[in-house]
């Protein structure tokens, strides 16, 4: 980058059109593109099915993506550092069952205690992932593929084939998800606040920027004194914590929880993150983008039922979305590199 800006300074180009600005521009174009896609879906489906484009259905869409969005925030942190967390679905499921089961066994338990228990469980499981990757130097894909099945197995052991249903848990637990605040369900507020906090953290704090540095150039990040290991550990721990919290909300929202809850959620989460423009090679992408990705996928999901398309299409669409998103990213990167080379040659 240094050579580019030096060269640029000597030409008629103003310095602000350097490479990094260009990268920023591209990610903004990427998010704008997503907004256009979202608008197109809303308009096309809305024209065909008038009930689709109502406030109550739009709230319904946001409600359905809220849990996914919270997990996607954690996944974004991990992916930014050039890692991946495949175990999030199992953590959400485990925390959901443990929290719901707590209220079933002890209906009088303080609501906050249940939330804390779910979060603590998520944090503990995320910590194990973080230790394996950061201290044990196990590649994230292997470590979290292993823990995906280990955590799910522990969930099965803990559940012993039991199920918690809506009638087993107190009303206060169920209202955790649906209680409206200023007319909007609490679940959406939780997701929005978490997204805002982490968006600010990643955008405007020093350690936040260091997540980007690790992912964009691990060697350089180490040379400038960034404690990569610690931050990668933190990313996994936070991903676990957020998944644990999302698990409690899952229990509150769906009420019926068994040991298979949230199976395969990791695919939806990763789809949301990469569709939202978070580069799978790490180093670029925003929380805003990931949220947009989650909303686009949720809107497609929602419109399928309005268009009377079979729900069996969902997983195929998630898979195709991942592939299309990374393909587009690859082409954008290539185009960007060519552009930078041309600029350097001038």
């Amino acid at each position, binding site marked *: 980058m240094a050579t580019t800006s030096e060269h640029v300074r000597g030409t008629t180009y103003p310095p602000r059109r350097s490479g990094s600005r260009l990268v920023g521009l591209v990610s903004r174009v990427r998010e704008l593109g997503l907004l256009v896609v979202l608008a197109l879906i809303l308009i096309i489906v809305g024209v065909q099915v008038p009930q689709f484009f109502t406030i109550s259905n739009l709230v319904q869409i946001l409600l359905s993506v809220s849990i996914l969005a919270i997990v996607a925030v954690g996944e974004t942190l991990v992916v930014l550092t050039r890692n991946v967390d495949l175990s999030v679905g199992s953590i959400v499921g485990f925390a959901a069952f443990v929290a719901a089961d707590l209220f079933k066994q002890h209906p009088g338990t303080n609501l906050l205690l249940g939330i804390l228990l779910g979060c603590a469980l998520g944090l503990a499981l995320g910590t194990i992932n973080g230790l394996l990757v950061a201290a044990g130097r196990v590649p994230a894909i292997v470590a979290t593929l292993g823990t995906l099945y280990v955590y799910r197995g522990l969930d*099965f052991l803990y559940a012993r084939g039991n199920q918690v249903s809506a009638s087993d848990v107190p009303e206060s637990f169920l209202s955790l998800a649906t209680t409206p605040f200023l007319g909007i369900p609490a679940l959406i507020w939780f997701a929005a606040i978490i997204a805002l906090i982490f968006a600010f953290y990643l955008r405007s704090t020093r350690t936040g920027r260091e997540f980007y540095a690790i992912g964009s150039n691990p060697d350089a990040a180490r040379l400038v004194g960034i404690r990569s290991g610690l931050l990668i550990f933190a990313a996994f721990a936070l991903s676990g914590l957020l998944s644990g919290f999302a698990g409690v909300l899952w229990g509150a929202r769906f009420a019926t929880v068994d040991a298979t809850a949230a199976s395969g959620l990791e695919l939806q989460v990763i789809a949301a993150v990469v569709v939202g423009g978070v580069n799978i090679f790490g180093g670029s992408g925003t929380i805003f983008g990931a949220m947009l990705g989650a909303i686009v996928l949720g809107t497609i999901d929602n419109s399928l039922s309005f268009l009377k398309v079979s729900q*069996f299409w969902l997983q195929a669409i998630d*898979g195709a979305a991942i592939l299309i998103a990374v393909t587009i990213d690859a082409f954008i990167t290539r185009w960007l590199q060519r552009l930078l080379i041309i600029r350097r040659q001038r």
Partner: protein
Amino acid sequence: MKHIWKFVSAWPWETLLVVLLLLTIVLGNALSPYFLTPFNFSLMVEDFVEKALMALPMTFIIIAGEIDLSVASVLGLASVLVGVTWHAGMPLWLVIGIALVVGVAAGLLNGALVTRLGLPSLVVTLGTLALFRGLAFVILGDQAVSDFPGAFTNFGIGDVPGTLIPWSFVLFVLLALLFMVTLHWSWIGRQIYATGLNKEAARFAGIGVRRLKLLLFILSGLIAALAGIIFTARISSARADNAIGFELDVITVVLLGGVNIFGGRGTLVGVILSLFVIGALRNALGLADVSGDVQNIVVGTLLVLSVLGPNIVQRIQVVLSRRRLAAESSKQA
């Protein structure tokens, strides 16, 4: 004694696997009196043969520095296609042919995205894991096809006449020999190792890295489809959720077999030993009434340990050698 020590120092990982296998056999024998019977061995082999087949190309792919997470989904898709095409009244040869062709196409898609666009195989095959499984659900939904002819299902559960050796195991042994010769005694094998050790150097040495990887992904798709046909014949049922999660066992087998996740290192001997370790372990736990999801705790832990263990050993070796160097230099001073 001397010979044994020589073997141990030359093949430390394989020795470890032999020890693990012996431990598993002792454990299995303690858990159930039926574990060490020929009939149970036959069952164990039958139960594990699809995973064993898929582990062969997976070994090649991981040694070449890539990974294929989509194998279980290709298996599921092939199984569904077998069911649907048979149900539509197609002859058996065409049913099998279509499944294999789709397996090749699936591998081609994986390989093309990885080699032509330079995308990481981890993400591509995670995407196709969802896509292929999703397509299986789109085609068959929650239905099942199970009206297969005896000739087809017999291959799945039949044994070589007069023995307890399943036909599918014979197929595996033949393929395993072919893969072993290819990897350890042919130029293709040398190219796979070279690619995994240093992609750039391999390219400068004149190896068509991209074509090689493309072929490996196609091979993986083909074998996964073959495994899908065998699986369908064995359980005599084509369902969209067939073999969900099999990729865990396949990848665990390969990494526990001593294949380096970063590519370039590993042997098929290790992988085959590790196949028996995981196969016997699952079988023993199954005999002890441990459910599949709980068995996954053990297999998942083994997966993590197979990478974590060597890392820790290496770290200790580095620390020890540093200490020795420090001691020597202080002596000299």
